[in-house]
């Protein structure tokens, strides 16, 4: 294979026209050549001089697409002409030249991409963080568990401060427990809309519960731990704590509900196969009463919520174990509702009852902390401290332990 050939052109001649197809690459040696192109919107003609020693026609030759400009000779010119093979061989020996061209091309590419993005503006994709989460959830939905795990973890790594972080965290948590994708959960778009409309503060996961439970529990009402957090620990910090944990082997006891709207949702979810997770709106029975109660709670209808939970507690016949588990949940919620209502004694009674009846409950630590909170409200600091102390000592070491420790330290100051 020979080297490039020299070719001469008379002033006024055209080396190639725009839209021509050609594979030759040129270098100007002598004379004057201009490149005439159209702006992308076709509104203006752009003329630029080729510098001596400069390559032209490279992109269309390498990419094998039509010429994007017309090369016109203004003064008699001498050019070096490369066939694609010659040009490649030349590049192999001149890596620096290739690097230079790469630099120029990457600059051009970046510019075009920027323009594309500008033009797409709002009609383009949403924020990357949202799209990443969407991707993760798509993997989860299609049961690509390892991909989903990867994507959720990447999301939490890069966007731990995102409003959707707790959602990602909960998803990762469910996934780690081999749970199917929670189909009853609000879609990302719905959650974003709610955040946008100010219905959600920062990041609580919004579970769309079956039946008439449409208004999304604690997106309206503060999640339980916000009660504690208002005393010195911000909810955001709690959120951050969630994010530290996205390890793959989250113990079952972990992360019950600190960032969850409804405290028992995670614990109830695993037991519900997807089919059951979406009972018909007409369904009655303990599950419905419980969810109705949560619904009322979310709307701050304390009395109505109390009534629902109390009714749930009166149910004695259960179809299965899942149904029976709603007794425990309802009792816990009842304690919370009374506390919200301001009936400290009733709340205390319910939580004490709960602690006695369900010493192995996932919500045990929380129940104890609510009791501690009531003690504190009643001015009994010592008892509050000793309860927090008890929580701190309880295995496993989790967020509740950390929180109880904080509260204890605060009270002991």
């Amino acid at each position: 294979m020979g080297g490039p050939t020299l070719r001469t052109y008379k002033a006024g001649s055209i080396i190639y026209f725009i839209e021509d197809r050609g594979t030759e690459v040129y270098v100007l040696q002598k004379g004057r050549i201009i490149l005439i192109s159209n702006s992308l919107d076709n509104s203006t003609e752009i003329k630029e001089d080729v510098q001596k020693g400069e390559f032209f026609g490279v992109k269309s030759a390498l990419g094998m697409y039509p010429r994007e400009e017309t090369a016109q000779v203004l003064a008699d010119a001498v050019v070096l002409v490369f066939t694609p093979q010659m040009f490649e061989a030349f590049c192999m020996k001149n890596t620096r030249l290739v690097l230079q061209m790469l630099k120029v091309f990457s600059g051009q590419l970046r510019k075009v991409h920027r323009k594309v993005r500008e033009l797409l503006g709002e009609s383009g994709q949403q924020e990357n963080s949202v799209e990443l989460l969407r991707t993760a959830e798509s993997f989860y939905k299609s049961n690509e568990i390892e991909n989903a795990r990867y994507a959720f973890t990447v999301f939490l790594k890069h966007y731990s401060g995102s409003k959707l972080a707790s959602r990602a965290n909960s998803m990762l948590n469910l996934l780690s427990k081999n749970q199917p994708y929670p189909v009853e959960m609000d879609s990302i778009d719905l959650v974003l809309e709610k955040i946008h409309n100010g219905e959600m503060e920062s990041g609580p996961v919004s579970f769309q519960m079956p039946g008439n439970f449409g208004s999304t529990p604690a997106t309206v009402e503060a999640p339980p731990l916000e009660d504690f957090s208002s005393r010195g620990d911000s909810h955001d910090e709690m959120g951050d704590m969630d994010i530290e944990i996205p390890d793959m082997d989250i113990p079952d006891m972990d992360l019950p509900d600190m960032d969850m709207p409804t405290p028992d949702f995670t614990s109830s979810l695993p037991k519900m196969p997807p089919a059951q997770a979406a009972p018909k709106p007409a369904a009655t029975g303990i599950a419905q009463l419980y969810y109705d109660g949560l619904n009322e709670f979310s709307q701050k209808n304390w009395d109505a919520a109390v009534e629902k939970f109390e009714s749930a507690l009166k149910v004695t016949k259960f179809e299965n174990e899942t149904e029976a588990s709603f007794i425990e949940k309802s009792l816990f919620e009842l304690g919370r509702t009374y506390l919200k209502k301001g009936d400290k004694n009733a709340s205390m009674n319910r939580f004490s009852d709960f602690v006695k009846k369900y010493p192995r409950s996932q919500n045990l630590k929380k129940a104890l902390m609510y009791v501690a909170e009531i003690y504190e409200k009643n001015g009994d600091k010592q008892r509050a401290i000793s309860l927090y102390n008890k929580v701190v000592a309880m295995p496993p070491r989790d967020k509740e332990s950390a929180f109880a420790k904080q509260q204890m330290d605060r009270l002991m100051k």
Partner: protein
Amino acid sequence: MQLEGLTSKFGKEFQPGQIIFCEFEPGDDFYLIQKGKVKISKIVKDKEKTMDILEAGDIFGEMAILEEQPRSATATAMDNVTALHFNRENFVTLMSSQPQLAFKLLVIFTKRIYDARRRLKILLLDDVQVKVCDTFLMLSEKEPNYKELKEVVLRITADGIAHWCGESVEKVQPILSHWAKIGKVELYADRIHVNNLTDCRRLVAARRKEKSD
């Protein structure tokens, strides 16, 4: 530096099924496959769509080196994959020692620039119908006999067309449906038959000229 040296320095191994990076993940490194196959896929409407399958010698993730944009697709190892792994820092070292690779990248970039500019041309049109026509043209330009082409079968759906136009599918679908009714196009689940490319060319050219006048 020889390739072996590069492998020990920049080599990375992936197990079958292992994800290398995922769509929308931030990242600033790219890969040259030395062994194995890598699947490039995107999630479209909750379904994973394979865009490409790459083999030894192929490069992927190279956009990250210039763009501070997240990954535009997911890369998954299909078998045991060994890949050289580069980033902004070691880029020059690699390119200087691997001129073929540098040249390959140059070619990839020229194609990317062309595609991006072509896309920009569509986006700059101000009428959705014309945008759709220009998208038809852009997609047919890849056919070798494009200039003589009167009709064409495009492996694309309304969603894809909407994507290229930068418009919502709700806007694009009625246009396509209307054209289907009057016989301009035929719509199928996985493809669109464009029956009169000449019309499209005329319409787009007229609109572009109009703008420049």
